[in-house]
């Protein structure tokens, strides 16, 4: 880690916090996901600042940004783009869809039909798009922020579990605390600041930071803890399904990234705990009443962090 890194990180966080008020943890998590090179799922009611956060992230990182509203009649081509016949050249040319951007905000993902959803998710996984037999690489970095209404809302197509797994983290923003909300109501800061946002990072710096993530040290004691957590999810009667190996990898990678954001060169159990809910929340399904986030919290309380 170079000497500039901590300053860079704190500057980035500071810039983001000025735009999205009272959401420090969520911002940190979002940035964690970004540094870890994973996609983000924001699950919350409309109007909680999901778009703002996505926008701010793009702005601070100096990345190009596109937003798309998902509806039930959305077709894959609407997202990816389509080949259109060009009369002048008498040939089909590929018109890139909104997906071809560095940060892509998929709003209300679970309103789209499974067909449209899977088109997006496949692109997320493979970092490329194939149309008419031709492959188009997506820009780097490629970061998808999808928002989703709570499952219970009617008229939604729930994302299949296998596809939820492709999101590194799931974050719910929640209501802001009273102080932040008051500021918001004053309108002094927040969304209005978006336009004045300066890019703290650029593409090169972002990639440099990303390359630091795998270098954060994982000690045996820490991996023991991670394995205890995973074993618990697999064994406990609270969970219908345990954490997959991919989920476990995501947990470790996120913890590394989180530790990096804390300015540390090694991972501590508290780093794992900090990201656990976001990583495991959407990957676990409980057998009983406790689902998702409460379930993840329950697991954290049951597994010894030491020893």
């Amino acid at each position: 880690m170079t000497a500039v890194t901590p300053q860079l990180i704190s500057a980035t966080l500071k810039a983001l916090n000025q735009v999205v008020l009272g959401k420090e943890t969520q911002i940190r998590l979002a940035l964690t996901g970004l540094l870890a090179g994973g996609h983000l799922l924001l699950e919350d009611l409309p109007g909680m600042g999901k778009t703002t956060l996505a926008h701010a992230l793009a702005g601070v990182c100096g990345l190009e940004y596109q937003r798309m509203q998902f509806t039930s009649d959305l077709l894959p081509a609407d997202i990816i783009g389509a080949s259109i016949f060009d009369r002048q050249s008498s040939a089909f040319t590929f018109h890139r869809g909104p997906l071809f951007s560095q940060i892509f905000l998929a709003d209300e993902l679970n309103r789209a039909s499974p067909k449209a959803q899977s088109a997006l998710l496949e692109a997320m996984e493979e970092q490329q798009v194939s149309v008419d037999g031709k492959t188009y690489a997506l820009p780097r970095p490629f970061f998808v922020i999808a928002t989703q209404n709570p499952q219970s809302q009617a008229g939604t197509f729930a994302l299949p579990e296998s596809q939820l797994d492709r999101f590194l983290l799931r974050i719910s923003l929640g209501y802001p605390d009273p102080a932040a909300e008051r500021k918001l109501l004053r309108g002094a800061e927040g969304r209005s600041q978006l336009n004045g946002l300066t890019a703290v990072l650029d593409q090169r710096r972002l990639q440099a930071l990303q390359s630091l993530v795998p270098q954060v040290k994982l000690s045996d004691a820490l991996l023991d803890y991670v394995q205890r957590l995973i074993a618990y999810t697999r064994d406990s009667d609270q969970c219908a399904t345990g954490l997959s190996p991919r989920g476990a990898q995501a947990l470790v990678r996120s913890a590394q990234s989180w530790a990096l954001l804390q300015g540390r060169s090694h991972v501590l159990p508290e780093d794992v705990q900090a990201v656990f809910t976001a990583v495991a929340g959407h990957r676990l399904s409980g057998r009983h009443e406790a689902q998702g986030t409460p379930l993840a919290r329950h697991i954290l309380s049951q597994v010894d962090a030491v020893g």
Partner: protein
Amino acid sequence: METHAKPTLLFRVKSQLDQWLKHRLPQTREVTLRQRQIFIVPTQLALGMLLLTLLLFILGINFQNSLVYAVCFWLLALLVLNILHTYRNLAGLTLKVIGIEPCFAGENALLTLELSCEADKKKYAVQLGWPEHDLSEVNLAESNHLRVQLAYPTQRRGRWTPPRITVRTHYPLGLAVAWSYLLSDISGLVYPKPQEQTALQPNIPNHSEHSSGHEIPGGSHDFGGIRDYQPGDAPRRIHWAKYAQTGELHSKTFIDYSSPECWLDWDALPFPDAEARLSHLCSQVLTCHAEQQEYGLNIPGTRLEPQWSEAHKNRCLTALALFGTLE
């Protein structure tokens, strides 16, 4: 009065013993058997062996035969040493309760246990379970990790706490038995027994009638209205006609209808008996789930919104299992 005093005394002794055991063996999910937890006594067979050595001793005396003495004493020493071997065969064994599969009343509840030990301390012929119901015998030799399922017949719905699990071994010579108990704080669910003949079908409504359904905004079937354009709206949704008129972008919205809800309702059942109602509701939940029909459950104290998923089924069955209990 003595006839009366006897059972109470026995009962008191037994409960004292249980108390002591509880103190000595705290309720846990996972236990590694050590000196403190392992009890060991000679078996009937050891008595036989003792008689045999006595017989040999007499033989040795009468024939003044040193080698007969030697055999006698060797067996005696074996009797003593075997106690340590039997102890060793249990010591260091780790038992972990993994969980209990929920089951329906009258079925066997399946408790999953995981056994493990250090690789160099193999365990043979370890029996575990409930001696009067299901006693399994396992070896931990090739692998030092093993899962075992134990079956216990259940009778009533509700939360089932398994009685203490016995783990014991007679290995290697059967002259001593070492045992311990696993008192687990885990509990499993026993769902009500589903009613056999489902004479009362849940009122699954007719799909063709939209009128009784409810609207889902953001659908794609029926036109719902017009609103201002928002970034990200699909181009196909833009009300071009209006754009031509006003020059402002508007988007069309559509509405879907979902099929009407199916409610499994406590009050709709014509039974006076709560258990019979639960039993019926249970079988209805299973039927609805099998037919992939969204359903809600309404019983006194609990109301679960209509939905169809594995988790929802579990929630419904859990609610039925725990109806009327303190939880």
